[in-house]
């Protein structure tokens, strides 16, 4: 059930097709693959640190607790609730 979610948040899952170009040597292909993997990892990290995946994680947690998506907030509702929650529960930022 969680395959889509984990795919989108997981840098280690190769999704692109790198090996199709027969012209390049195996070594170059390995390098390309490593570069792509690094870029994908960086993108994953950026999204995680900025909080872009918050809804996916909420859904994963909801499934874990309820065994189903039923009754979980929709994306729009979730994001609205996320900032509204901060109205009631502000977090300090440091100096």
């Amino acid at each position, binding site marked *: 059930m969680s395959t889509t979610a984990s795919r989108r948040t997981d840098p280690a899952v190769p999704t692109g097709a790198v090996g199709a170009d027969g012209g390049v040597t195996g070594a170059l292909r390995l390098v390309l693959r490593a570069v792509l993997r690094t870029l994908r990892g960086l993108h994953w990290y950026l999204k995680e640190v900025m909080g872009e995946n918050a809804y996916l994680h909420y859904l*994963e*947690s909801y499934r874990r607790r309820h065994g189903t998506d039923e009754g979980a907030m929709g994306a729009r509702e979730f994001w609205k609730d996320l900032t509204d929650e901060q*109205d009631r529960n502000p977090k*300090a930022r440091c*100096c």
Partner: protein
Amino acid sequence: MTVEYVRTDEDAPPVGVIEKPRWTPARIVVWAAIGVVAGLGWVMIAFVRGEETSASWFVAAAVGSYLLAYRFYAKFIQWKICKPDVTRATPAEINDNGRDFTPTDRRVLFGHHFAAISGAGPLVGPVLAAQMGYLPGTLWIVFGVILAGGVQDYMVLYFSTRRNGRSLGQMARDELGTVGGIIASIGIILIMVILIAVLGVVIINALAESPWGVFSIAMTIPIALFMGVYMRFLRPGAVVETSVIGVVLLILAIVAGGWVNYDPVWSEFFHLDRSTLAWCLMIYGFLAAVLPVWVLLAPRDYLSTFMKIGTILLLAVGIVVVNPTVQMPAVTEFAFNSDGPAFAGSLFPFLFITIACGALSGFHALISSGTTPKLVEKESQIRMIGYGGMIMESFVAIMALVAAVSLDKGIYFAMNAAEPLTGGTAQGAADFINNSLGMSGVETNAAELEQAAKDVGEESIISRTGGAPTLALGMAHILHQLPGFGGQAAMSFWYHFAVMFEALFILTTIDAGTRVARFMLSDLLGNFVKRFRDPSWTVGAWMTTFIMVAAWGSILLMGVTDPLGGINTLFPLFGISNQLLAAIALAVVFAIVCKSGYAKYAWIPGIPLAADLAVTMTASWQKIFSSDPKLGYWAQHFAYRDAVNAGETSLGNTEGAEAMNAVVRNTFVQGTLSIVFAVVVVLVVVMALWVSYKAVAGSTVTSSEEPHTPTTYFAPASFIATKAEKEVEAQWDEYRREKGLTKPGVGGH
């Protein structure tokens, strides 16, 4: 290498891997090499010195020392006190709600934690401390974080995680009793007020009379509003996309600031003095704290996080690639007397006060308790997040120091000497530096100082105190030399880029801080008038916000109009209050260590506590009792009061009856605050020592920990998973696939 696998359920894969690595020759060689690099760095900056000390030695000394400390000292603390229990579920696992409690990938949480603890503090403190030379500051930043700052953050995070993520105030109440808890809470509110006010002074000093700066910072408000609406109604959840749009607009705003600056009409419009800016900041702070978070605060926070990560990486690359040569001597005359123009006071205690964040910052205890502990996956990761996060912050401070000390000395002192000394003109500053600075080997002239201002598109750089403008100049100085970064012509862009980056940090701290302080006040007032506890009571929210803004606003106004130069007199109070908060946090940690039966190792929080108390109490003592009017608030107060009473209208560099009265008033407030802070902390520390003594003398071991709940979860302990950890992760993936379970925790491996 011995590997032990720990299980809580015989049918499931292990929940923990305990590895005891053996000291193989290769491992010994690697750690010896790290030691040699660190040692060489220290030798080069401390002893060889010479004219050509380059920034790379600072990086070698700092990074090498950090690695050793993380591997050996932090591990020692983990081994003796903060013993991670791999079978124990963390609050994130137990109370998982997919939101504020949720197991978060350790590397992501490291990023979140770092973004929350790092702000403008580690950037400006080291810049001011550079007046004593680069060596004292570097030593304190590196060894301070190893023995004090890292220890505080790590232990508070550990103890709070064991206590369901309770806040520092709540832990104080639990450990020290109700009275101790209330005193600690009042101390925390007061300290927040002064922090916000001083950060406000810092940013206003960077923006006053700078149309370019004012325009580009003002533009961040419509940009944030746009981002808020965009994320609320058009693209909910598109955080990175929205932030990228925001950053692009931000850069446009910086570029457009240049046009405004050279346009006679618009530059006049955005040419604002300090008092006007202070009022703008107060109105902004009030609105930001009462408006819904999505309108202004949340988008700004995204923007500020994005800029923080990007700019810090950029600066690190800049320092390594450009490798600037240090201009400031290792130690200057101002380390031994109290005549330094940037801030008053000698090395002990004021170096340790001026550089608070970056070495030891009490404020971090508020993040390490309450926010981060609710997201930790495993107790074994706390060392990496708490201690490791603080090491990162310390490195940011080192970079700020390097940026400042690689500036021309004349320019540095012209920027950091307050207006009464320089008269606010290039000629006045040159005269002051050449004739009465009191430090040998610094020479400059008016033309040089005017050119430096012109290079960055400012009318003047004289007496731009507070550290932020100096850092911006230092950063511009480094960044414009990077290949492809525009060269000399881009100096003004990078200067205003750096000002923007600092202003974003500071404004985020001000609006979030005002909001948090307002909630704390409501909570406190709720003890007397119950209705204040109701968050939906708008009148109450407005009232408490107004009180908080009035509190920091009045200190802010006092600072920006201070005839003696606000930073010079207020910054020590900022540092003292932050370090006093650290004393409260360390005292609570100390009490917990003693009460949990680890009194033998109480020296681990005890050393930083004692050092911190020695520093803050000496500084407070001098600020309250020193007879030197440059140093003591009360000595200054009485000197000016007597002069006013005698009918005089000038004293020292202060001219005019109004200014004289302002000094009398300001020093009274500053002196009173010094006394209140010191008394609050002494009370908390005495209570902590008393409960510690009772625990040790009575050999009673009590615990306010939450009961042990067995975990059903595995995650690696450090940045890079070991071979055994990867194997166990694979077993879990297999196990979950078989059982059709969803993986707890957030993303990645």
